[in-house]
């Protein structure tokens, strides 16, 4: 299925990929059921044959919306401005994403500054008469204040409902200012999973920023990442390749030159799926079709595929051999230190597949994982990118593998199933509960932490560090009350209230 860049509105993940946000079972089973996406349906969902069974229940807790993912992508481009076309409440995200932006800039040795997000601050009367005038005013303010290279517009639930012609004013202002003014359609209610927000941003970037007549740079590789430390530059140097980090912390020019690169990679298919596939489809920049670079087999395969596409096989083989040798002794030590420890992974979908692989390399038992959503397939539709199958095939099954869009009320029961010594997280909301149960969490703010060969060691060291926090959490656990009723906590099944549809 082709990505459609003709319309300004991105298709949601559930439409494109069949994404689900609630499921419970074994990893192997989910992998098998997802095969429909490539072959025939193995599940028995009756007339919904070509879809994964998704569970649905009456109780839900606050999730995350697509607009937030737009903030954390388009809002973190260094020489652009993001307009939040919304009431002031959606603007609350400015505080959160500013904190992240500042930390990210510091991690990447870039000058630390506040981000540039402007809320159009819609009021009650705008809901009646429309907010387009205010949008245009804010676009003009953005221009006068910062002279950015591009202006992005994030829509919101409110402007989606009142039907403001955001595309029209974007076009008008683009004509007036002579820079790309890019509407990103990301109403929170439009997709059940926030990752559609990634796609919305990437959609706009491909439509309006990426250079249409590229001059190829044969040693340039697009790396789709967030704010993580720069582990790619030294690695790619070994292969004589240069890094083009996108989307977060990039400049508009970095984004424009994506079409000139020799390949596109990422640290997580959930994030990179749309952009990488789109760049290949529109500009012939090959997406590296391989498992993600986690653990030995994943990293080996990923490097080899990158080397093949960029014609650097020999350099890659030498590098792989050197690295295996280098990391082996410390990994052996870490395995001894981590023997018998049980971990639980609760992060985004494809990322969790990678992290579990690394934990298993370290000899950590992983009997349970909660992923925030599940994409049965990625935009490339290439089986070489089937991260879940890669995990199950290389490292064995994960008996308790649940999909739940950060529903804390289910998390208690999930932890009871496997009683882990620690958890690994990336989004907020779950660690506080684990903490109240005496279980420490490692929040992987630096998304590159566990990547590649060195990532195996990094993650091992981090686990040792957080295991020592256990004292704190155990002490806390003895003194807090959970907000859940005993009745609910006593239910063995965290999915009791949800049923397949």
């Amino acid at each position, binding site marked *: 299925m082709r990505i459609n860049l003709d319309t300004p509105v991105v298709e949601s993940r559930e439409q494109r990929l069949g994404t689900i946000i609630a499921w419970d079972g074994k990893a192997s089973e989910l992998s098998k059921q997802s095969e429909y996406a490539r072959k025939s349906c193995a599940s028995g969902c009756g007339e919904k044959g070509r879809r994964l069974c998704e569970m649905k229940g009456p109780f839900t807790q606050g999730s995350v919306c697509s607009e937030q993912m737009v903030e954390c992508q388009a809002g973190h481009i260094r020489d652009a401005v993001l307009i939040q076309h919304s009431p002031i409440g959606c603007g609350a995200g400015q505080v959160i994403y500013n904190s992240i932006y500042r930390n990210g800039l510091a991690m990447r040795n870039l000058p630390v500054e506040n981000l540039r997000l402007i809320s159009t601050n819609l009021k009650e009367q705008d809901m009646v008469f429309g907010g387009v005038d205010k949008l245009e005013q804010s676009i003009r303010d953005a221009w006068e204040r910062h002279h950015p290279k591009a202006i992005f517009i994030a829509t919101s639930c409110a402007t989606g*409902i009142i039907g403001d012609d955001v595309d029209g004013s974007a076009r008008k202002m683009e004509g007036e200012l002579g820079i790309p003014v890019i509407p990103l359609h990301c*109403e929170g209610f439009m997709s059940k999973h926030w990752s559609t927000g990634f796609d919305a941003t990437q959609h706009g970037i491909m439509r309006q920023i990426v250079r249409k007549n590229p001059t190829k740079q044969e040693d340039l590789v697009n790396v789709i990442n967030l704010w993580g430390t720069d582990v790619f530059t030294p690695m790619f140097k070994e292969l004589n390749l240069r890094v083009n980090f996108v989307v977060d912390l990039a400049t508009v020019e970095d984004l424009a030159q994506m079409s000139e690169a020799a390949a596109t990679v990422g640290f997580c298919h959930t994030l990179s799926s749309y952009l990488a596939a789109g760049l290949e489809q529109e500009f012939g920049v090959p997406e590296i079709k391989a498992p993600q670079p986690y653990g030995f087999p994943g990293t080996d395969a990923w490097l080899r595929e990158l080397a093949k596409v960029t014609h650097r096989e020999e350099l890659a083989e030498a590098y792989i051999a050197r690295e295996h040798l280098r990391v082996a002794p410390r990994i052996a030590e870490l395995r001894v230190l981590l023997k018998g420890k049980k971990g639980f992974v609760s992060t985004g979908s494809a990322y969790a597949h990678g992290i579990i692989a690394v934990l298993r390399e370290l000899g950590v038992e992983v009997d349970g994982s909660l992923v925030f959503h599940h994409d049965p397939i990625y935009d490339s539709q290439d089986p070489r990118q089937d991260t879940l199958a890669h995990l199950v095939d290389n490292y064995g099954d994960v008996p308790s593998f649940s999909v739940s869009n950060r529903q804390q009320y289910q998390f208690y029961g999930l932890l009871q199933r496997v009683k882990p010594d620690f958890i690994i997280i990336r989004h907020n909301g779950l660690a506080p509960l684990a903490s109240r149960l005496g279980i420490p969490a490692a929040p992987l703010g630096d998304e590159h932490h566990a990547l590649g060969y060195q990532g195996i060691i990094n993650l091992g060291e981090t686990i040792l560090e957080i295991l020592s926090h256990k004292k704190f959490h155990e002490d806390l656990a003895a003194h807090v009350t959970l907000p859940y009723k005993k009745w609910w906590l006593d239910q063995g099944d965290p999915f009791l209230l949800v049923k397949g549809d």
Partner: protein
Amino acid sequence: MQGAETVVTEGRTFPPLGPKTNSIQQVRYVCAIGAMHSASAIPWVIPITHCGPGCAEKQFGSLAMCNGFQGGGYGGGAVVPSTNISESEVVFGGENRLRELIRASLKILDAELFVVVTGCIPDLVGDDAGAVVREFQAEGVPVVLAETGGFKGTNFTGHELVTRAIIDQYVGEYAGGRTPGVVNVWSMLPYHNTFWQGDLSEIKRVLEGGGLKVNILFGHESEGVSEWKRIPQAQFNLVLSPWLGLRTAQHLEGKYGQPFLHLPIIPIGADETSSFLRKVVAFAGIDPSLAEEFIKKEERTYYHYLEGFGEFYSEYFWGMPAKFVVVGESAYNLALTRFLINDLGLMPGGQFITENPPEEYREAISREFRTIADDVVTHVAFEEDSYRIHTLIRQSDFGQKPPIILGTTWERDLAKEMRSAVVEVGFPASYEMVLSRTNVGYRGAIALLEKIYTTVVSGTA
């Protein structure tokens, strides 16, 4: 003065900036649904949010996490119950979804009261959330509704909606008498004021020191809903803020015939705090001797520390900023400005009121600033857009040394640029860990001095 266009400080006029627009860059308040935190601030009360999937997470992440890392409290946080409205509820309405969620919440969550708050979507598509909540109320379920659609107001006005909802729908009618010496306190905005927990504790401590019995209502020192149930029995209401809580007190006056005392100044420092306590005690008409004894004891401790500080203050070799700027909501802004002028003898260099207070209160707020001291001229500017605030500060002339900025994380870059110090005293304070720290009363004033001058001194080398 017309706050918007010109800022006058010490007789100087800042050059005017272009006219205000709708734009808000670097938010300093959020929307009415942010008041879900006012529900979370009452022990064992849990909000239920009827809104899009990101709304609750955003309010929490910004008000409670990236603002002092306060945490979400019992049942609060990023994962309060939420309908996570999707397209079908937008098209077909979300009443059934809300009903289902409330019912499930009763099953799963252990709360003494649920407060349903609504976001933009249900208010726009016309859900009758009231009807749904009334069904549960009819069954005797402790649940109330506050319609806090994001475009309708700020988290300040949302706070009063939540408060009012609990009073009208949960506390209910009361015909009994009032207990002398008992006071309900309506003061700073929970969570948004980064220091609200410590501040409310200190206010409670001071009032109790004067012999009053205090319903503090928010924070862990409140007994929770049983304390709220007793609101009508109190002798009077104390509104301790320039405007927030006034509507509540007026409502209570109408509803229960309960009088209220409005003191716009949250006290910081011995003078202000002692005079605050004396005023409240006089209003209550209780025996002042207890208060006087308490004041004596507190002032002894206070001035003991102040004496130590005085040595630094008179001798610190490397000079200190003589001027200060406050960027923050009116209650803290006024309290801090008074303290720094009257107790430290610093000179005001610009007071920016940032919470967008309702028009009708603005003149009274400005007057409070004008009357701080006869020898110091202070005017305020009502500004919400940080870009404008920073431009105005940049354009000011502060003399020999740049001012201390009492502000927020948004002022960090500006302070660096001006080679001055920023003390993060309000939303958002993303570089402060705040648990029980307070800036008010006797104890808070000392902690505030510690914080300000630690920042100043560590900035020197």
